């Protein structure tokens, strides 16, 4: 019988991360990672002055 381990939140990182691991007989059978927050910077920057991109994309991750 497979056992599912969910780690949420994963701390000491930037952002929101969930890790799910399926373990069967002491071995990892399958695993999933999900970033659970989106802002849509790429879509927002479409049509903007290209010089805005350096300022805005530096706010992807502040760590």
């Amino acid at each position: 019988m497979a056992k599912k381990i969910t780690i949420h939140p994963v701390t000491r990182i930037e952002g929101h991360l969930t890790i799910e691991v399926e373990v069967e007989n002491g071995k990892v059978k399958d695993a999933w990672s999900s970033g659970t927050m989106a802002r849509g910077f790429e879509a927002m920057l479409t049509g903007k002055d290209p010089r805005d991109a350096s300022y805005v994309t530096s706010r992807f991750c502040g760590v």
Partner: protein
Amino acid sequence: MKEEDILSKELERELELHGINRRDFLKYCATTAAVLGISELEFTSGVAHAMETASKKPPVVWFAGQACTGCTISFAQINYPPASSIILDKISLRYHMTVMAAAGEVAEKALHEAIKEGGYVYIFEGAIPSADDRFWMHGKRPGREVFEEIAKKAGAVIAVGACSAYGGIPRACPTKGIGVGEALKRAGINKPLINISTCPVHPDHLAGTILYYLVTGKVPELDSKGRPAMYFGEVSMHDNCRRRAHFDAGEFLKDWNNPKQKNWCLFEKGCKGPVSYIDCTVRRWNDGISFCLDCGGLCQACGEPIFYDKVTPLYSAESEISKKIYAIRKSSLSNKKNG
């Protein structure tokens, strides 16, 4: 153990690359865990006593939505007083995803225990998506729900950074991020709120506000936009700008390559200083070393509610705000001529 050793060496190298002493890093995390009083609390009774003393300090819950954690990093850079001394000695930090040692269920337990107790200072970083809850999920729950759950039991709310105060960059995104003030209003929650805008938050602003709250137990006096009046709202960047004389003389930098223009006013290049009421010119950044205007940059009014959707394009005078500034400039020039 072997695997762990290999991992540690890798991590050590990684930290070394970034100039961080691994030992200090782990020590910091461990000490924070002790103050958080989470996993250890369940296993060692000794820590329980420590937890008791820690809980007498004002509890703080730091939560993040549509954020980049830049405000956390900005706050961590503060030297006077050191961020670690605020976190360890002055407050009882119950939950902070980026610095807490615990992860998963144990971390969530710490959060739920803090909520049960209530009365904490709630520091929030990042915006809350208003277009669709699924843009920010906290585990299986919409982040907005968790945000509201924490806010309901808070004593006071501090919104740090432009995103959290007024929506900032996420407001311009398809997820339509909103600030804490707006989110609380929509949820019908009434709590004292302090906006400490700018992108990222200025460490002095946040530390000063926290210390003010610790000493007086009150929210500091706020300006019309909900920001501490001791830092915001008084003098515009423009009033203290060293290029100001050139603005008054009508000398505007048009060509970066022209040495004659190098000290001229940057309005034509997209500076929003005249509408930016923040104390950067006197407080400066990075321990008072410099700030945007002193290293050839422009002011983008990151501490104002207009940031970012109304100040774009950043590097030309075609934004909504620049046009307004232009109109003011024109009328002041014509007044001078008439006077």
